[in-house]
């Protein structure tokens, strides 16, 4: 079977071999040939074509590029794509099912958890990692878990409410 990838402008120099990596993204198994200096965020956006992962500061400060690697939130601008070899990645595109939004996405809509929306994918993934281990967080827990994700619009009030809304919805779903 042949898989075709977007050109990510990632041509290795003669003395730097490309690396072949296998990874899973949002449940789909992928194989890619990457130059070692390609960042995970580049692979996701330009290689796989999933542009929901945003590049904000590109300096490990803002958390806009947050994705889950093996369920843990990390900054994809600060991990090499080759390091995804053998690992499982979840991006914001992996939250919703074909028919419905994830409760976190519903929560951000219901509680007005975004204005410009640039930080939102990273916020939702950091929040998902929290709710996966702590289904009933306090406001303090939510603020702590999101403390690596910066938002320049909202003042965080509604983001925190959105995550608490999603937590309540997820709890009611699992109770029902």
């Amino acid at each position, binding site marked *: 079977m042949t898989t075709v990838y977007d050109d990510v402008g990632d041509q*290795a*120099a003669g*003395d*730097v*071999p490309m*690396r072949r990596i296998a990874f899973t993204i949002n449940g789909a198994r992928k194989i890619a040939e990457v*130059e*070692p*200096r*390609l*960042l995970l965020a580049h692979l996701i956006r330009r290689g796989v074509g999933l542009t929901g992962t945003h590049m904000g500061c*590109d*300096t*490990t*400060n803002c*958390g806009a590029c*947050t994705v889950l690697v093996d369920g*843990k*939130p*990390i*900054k994809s*601008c*600060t*991990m*090499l794509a*080759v*390091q995804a*070899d053998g690992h499982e990645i979840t991006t914001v595109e992996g939250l919703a099912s074909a028919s419905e939004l994830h409760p976190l996405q519903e929560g951000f809509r219901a509680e007005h958890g975004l204005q410009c929306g640039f930080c939102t994918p990273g916020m939702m993934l*950091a929040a998902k990692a929290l709710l996966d281990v702590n289904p009933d967080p306090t406001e303090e827990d939510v603020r*702590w*878990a999101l*403390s*690596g*994700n910066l938002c320049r619009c909202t003042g965080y009030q509604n983001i925190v409410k959105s995550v608490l809304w999603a937590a309540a919805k997820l709890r009611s779903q699992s109770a029902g």
Partner: protein
Amino acid sequence: MYPSRFRYEAPRSLEEAIRLLHEGGDEAKIMAGGQSLVPLMKLRFASPELIVDINNVPGLDYHRADPDGTLRVGALCRHADLERSDLLKQAQPTMAAAAPLIADPLVRNRGTLVGSLCHADPQGDWASVVVALGGSVVARGPGGRRAIPAAEFVTGPFENALAHDEIAVEAVIPAPVGTRSGGYLKLERRVGDFATVGVAVALETSDGSVTRAGIALTGVGGSTIAATQAAAALMGGPLTPESIERAAEAAAEAAQPRSDHRGSAEYKRHMVRTFVVRLLSRDGASVGKAA
């Protein structure tokens, strides 16, 4: 931003990693969490020709206590592992206080304590903590293993005592002789920022008397500062308001802060003093109870 081009190897054993380092000479660099190295490479402050990624080396992600209480932290133990550690909460108050203050939750999921020590940023929190605890770093190279006291491991800003073909495989915190107490306080402008000022205090007491003291300072000098005179001021007796005052004064004198966008030198020195008093006053209460 892209780093400069580099060759990438991800060995599956320490022996292989050491061989790659040995062959790579000064242009080879170990990557563990990469949370300092990748940003430096993107900004082209570092342009190693060979990256030896040790994330696939098995058996380095531990932190555990020996039967005698010696704590060992492996090269792939992440900050988040330490933040969640019951072992630290029970037996390592200074480390337990510092772990949640490292960078931000996302960085803590990848960054490592041992990598932080190797990076030797004057504003790195772990170096102060490990120095205050009298810890050491175990290095492995072609010639075998050696332990380097943490106070000697950091040789200057962004410089460590490793030879080019040595890997720091674990940090070691010696077992306490008496009852261990202490803490870490960090002043930062926002979560994830480097420390404006950080102070680590590690004490051991027996029968209400201080038998070992360590105080180290973050972010107030060209490298981590061991405030040895401040620690000495606490030795041999119970903590008293007078001894705490002497230690705080000596720690403030040991600081070599510079005025910058995070605060004036005078302010930083004042905060060192304040943090030492706060940390020791808190301990004073627990030491009093134990006695």
